[in-house]
């Protein structure tokens, strides 16, 4: 139940749904975190789901491809690429039922320095603005 994307039922499917549906959660090369409530991280965030993949090229590519497939449909985006690959992106997807949806992704294989074989995908839902989410990431230490 925790790994069912809430908006999957509403028909507003995202490509990242496929990698966040729990299929990788028990894999030894992943960390999968689900956190839900009413006011998470002192913001009106109701749902948080992150997936970090280490050292598994196939899984890392699957996550990166899902994000790349959702990127064109984003209502608002900030994307940093290295070549044709997304290094970092912040996507605000079309809202559903007044709830905003955010995808934040980072592929450390393309970091300018300190490269790591690691990708991290974060998906969040809530009644918050892009500015609030960006600020949270900027100020988080």
């Amino acid at each position, binding site marked *: 139940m925790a790994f069912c994307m809430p908006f999957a039922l509403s028909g507003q499917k995202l490509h990242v749904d496929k990698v966040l549906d729990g299929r990788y959660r028990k894999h030894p090369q992943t960390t999968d975190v689900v956190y839900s409530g009413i006011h998470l991280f002192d913001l009106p965030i109701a749902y948080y789901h992150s997936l970090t993949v280490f050292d598994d090229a196939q899984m890392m590519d699957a996550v990166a491809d899902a994000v790349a497939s959702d990127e064109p449909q984003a209502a608002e985006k900030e994307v940093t690429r290295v070549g044709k690959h997304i290094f970092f992106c912040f996507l605000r997807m079309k809202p559903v039922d007044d709830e905003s949806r955010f995808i934040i992704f980072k592929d450390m294989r393309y970091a300018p320095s300190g490269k790591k074989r690691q990708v*991290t995908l974060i998906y969040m839902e809530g009644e918050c603005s892009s500015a609030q989410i960006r600020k*949270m990431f900027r100020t988080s230490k």
Partner: protein
Amino acid sequence: MKKTDFTPYAIKHDKAFWLRLQERYFEAATTEEEERELRGFVAATDDADFRELQAVMGYVGAMRRRTSVRRARRMRVRACVAAAILLAVLALPFAFRQSSQVYGEAYVRGERVTDARHVERMARHTISDMSMDDVAETQLLQIFEGIE
């Protein structure tokens, strides 16, 4: 002052009657009505032939009073328990709502974590890992590459 002989019970029946009734009482053969009559008689007489019956009826009476007090106490306890259960049932949805406001579950390299506070820390750590510094660095590099 000597009691008995002029009580209504004495007038109603003679001593032989009461002795027979006493015998039937000790055989547990008396009706409630007869028992009531006998009790009334025994309370009013000081005839030695009924001393034993007086002692027994006095004990039974005391037991009855104690039993009714105990019964009343039991009823009060049952009422309190029922009220407590009702309150607990009514409060359950609120308690559940409190505990269900935050849900956290994580799998760290296959190991399940369900402590919500620990999961929150992990989420915050993941967010802080998404540092924007190297993103800014990459963007700057790309700008300079464009200039060159």
